[in-house]
């Protein structure tokens, strides 16, 4: 069997050496903490505290307001200062609970839980739901929803996405090196929900040390295997990953569960471990603070709500003036214009670059070189789709399967004419999705 992978994809400079060899460091926030009520896909959470309330670490401050929603917990002890719209990484202002940190870190008492092997499936799902766990790879889809497919007996693969194909990011890598046993336990918990499933830890082959560590943790485990995947972006995109592991194809109208797969990110699975074994809600995540503008690039354990500026300070500040700051990886992250935004459940990285590739070149005419076609993991013709998008030709756009785009950005990356293909395709997709919601 050859190395598992998908068709298409790119090999960008990976920049992981900047931060990969330094141990994860915990950061204690100093100033106020900002908890946006919408850190996930679905209905925003509804606050259950009010101005002036004292909150403790681990106290629920906002409740899920529907099935596809997730609660939010305080990560410091202190006083609720106000509830008001605050800017988040996407540039939008989102209603947020602001807590003034009293630096005491008084914790609530976490419930003593029985061993997960004695729990029913419903008890496990409930714990995950209550812990406010969402997909921490970036999308933020509530995990309990993902773990409640219509026909759980048809699920045969529970895959942990350990690919970490985004350049510069090393948070999953550090987690696998430092706490592989938590990851494996988390996966075992998820597997208890699906009677016919086997567990797969899918790792890119540029991380042989992780593969070895994980295999070490799996001695005697027959139901979980470690898969080595070819190192290529976007190997960790859900559809590419499922295809690499199972050879099954998922399109935009399907869910992974339709082909018997459940895919979760590394940090998400560790959060499941914390919730079901330790009774702790989702309060922290690992954030890679990196880039050539950062003095001491490394990974931090960050409390949700911490200001990005504090993370930069923790990493020694800027050694050169950053030209571009990105929340997330360089391929799918958000460019931000202001560091004064909070880290949320889905903040995987803070990348500070001294050079902006996008501004460096002016877009020129498409020369039809077909590189975008060659790299597109969805097997589309991005050059034409972006053309239709720029002409607002919704009909043609959909006819040429524009809605199958997974927004990985390979086409923009590879384009020698420096056209922002992914950008126009993404905005067109947004418009069409909005139309569909309105029932047009």
């Amino acid at each position, binding site marked *: 069997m050859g190395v598992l992978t998908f068709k298409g994809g790119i090999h960008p400079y990976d920049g992981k050496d900047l931060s990969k060899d330094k141990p994860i460091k915990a950061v204690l926030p100093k100033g106020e903490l900002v908890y946006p009520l919408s850190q996930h896909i679905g209905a925003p959470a509804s606050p259950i505290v009010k101005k002036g309330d004292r909150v403790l670490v681990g106290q629920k401050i906002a409740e899920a307001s529907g099935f596809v929603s997730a609660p939010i917990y305080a990560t410091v002890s202190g006083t609720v200062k106000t509830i008001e719209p605050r800017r988040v990484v996407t540039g939008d202002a989102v209603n947020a609970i602001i807590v003034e940190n009293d630096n005491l870190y008084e914790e609530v008492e976490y419930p003593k839980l029985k061993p997960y092997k004695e729990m029913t499936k419903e008890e496990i799902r409930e714990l995950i739901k209550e812990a406010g766990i969402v997909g921490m790879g970036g999308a933020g889809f509530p995990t309990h929803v993902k773990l409640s497919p219509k026909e759980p007996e048809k699920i045969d693969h529970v895959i942990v996405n350990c690919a970490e194909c985004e350049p510069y990011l090393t948070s999953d890598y550090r987690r696998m090196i430092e706490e592989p046993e938590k990851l494996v336990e988390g996966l075992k918990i998820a597997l208890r929900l699906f009677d016919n499933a086997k567990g797969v830890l899918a790792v890119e082959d540029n991380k042989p040390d992780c593969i070895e560590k994980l295999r070490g943790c799996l001695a005697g485990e027959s139901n979980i295997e470690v898969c080595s995947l070819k190192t290529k972006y976007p190997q960790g995109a859900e559809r590419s990953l499922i295809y690499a592991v199972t050879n099954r194809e998922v399109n935009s109208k399907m869910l992974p569960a339709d082909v018997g797969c459940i895919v979760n990110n590394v940090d998400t699975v560790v959060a499941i471990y914390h919730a079901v074994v330790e009774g702790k809600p989702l309060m922290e995540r690992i954030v890679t603070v990196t880039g050539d503008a950062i003095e001491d690039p490394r990974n931090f354990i960050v409390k949700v709500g911490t200001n990005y500026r504090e993370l930069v300070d923790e990493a020694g500040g800027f050694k050169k003036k950053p*030209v571009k700051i990105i929340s997330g990886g*360089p391929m*799918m992250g958000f460019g*931000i214009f202001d560091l004064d935004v909070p880290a949320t459940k889905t903040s995987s990285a803070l990348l500070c670059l001294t050079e*902006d590739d996008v501004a460096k070149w002016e877009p020129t005419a498409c020369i039809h070189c077909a590189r975008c076609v060659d790299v597109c993991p969805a097997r589309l013709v991005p050059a034409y789709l972006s053309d239709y998008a720029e002409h607002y030709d919704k009909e043609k756009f959909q006819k040429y399967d524009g809605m199958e785009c997974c927004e990985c950005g390979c086409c923009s990356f590879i384009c*020698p004419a420096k056209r922002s293909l992914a*950008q126009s395709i993404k905005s067109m997709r947004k418009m069409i999705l909005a139309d569909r919601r309105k029932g047009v």
Partner: protein
Amino acid sequence: MNVSSSPHIRHKDTTGSMMMIVLLALLPATLFGIYNFGLRAALVIAVTVATCVGTEYIYERCMKLPITVKDYSAAVTGILLALNLPSTAPVWMCILGGIFAILVVKMLFGGVGQNVMNPALGARCFLLISFTARMTNFTYDGISGPTPLALLKEGGSLLDLNTFDMVVGRIPGTIGETSLIAIVIGAMILILFGIIDLRIPASYIISFVVFLILFGGHGLDGTFLTAHLAGGGLMLGAFFMATDYVTSPITPTGKILFGIFLGVMTVVFRIFGASAEGVSYAIILGNLLVPLIERVTLPKSFGKGGEKK
């Protein structure tokens, strides 16, 4: 602080850098052409390149368009046109060809990326039809003589042809088409730098050989096949002209279909047509069919091909 939509990084290749590599890849054939046909060939090359670049620059200045000559695509067109001309081509014809290539075939259709047919080939065909005698006046070593293909067309004997000379390129022909070796070195540069893949040239050459064996009338005769592979414009056409980005299909299977079409048409033009050469016409005809080929060869998007067992 700069803000933009993701992705935030870009590959280092630009249109200009890729065209630079094409120029580099054309260097072996160009140098061999000058060595083979003397300084007269260098003059033809210089004039066509200058005309092509100059025409694009002046047109864009006059029409107040962004100047695109620094993407080197006009220079590539210039060299390709020169390599498709005989070394005896008069200067006025080089200038006329260069202007036709850039102005009529490229700029009037909207400039780089918009032209329907390969500019160099468009100009070559224009000159070939308008000035047939001058365009087929090949001189080698001071003696004018027919190309191997023309010789065969006129009923010449296969025994008059030397396989070794045809492979090395010591034969009459256009400036850049004679040396199989120089062209293959250039093709390897294109492939190594990822500028082209083998889909178009391989399907072109393979289908050409297959149809030639079937309909050429000489079966598997080695000299005959070599004459057709190395004695005309096939190699230059397959690696440098048919692979022109703008005028070849964007879809993976479309490229193969395109190559097969070119192979078949080249045999038809060469064997059944009136003229000895058929590569240019085949490619131009293929160029015109590209939108159609793309439409029938759109890749099946991921997940729409049905479940794999």
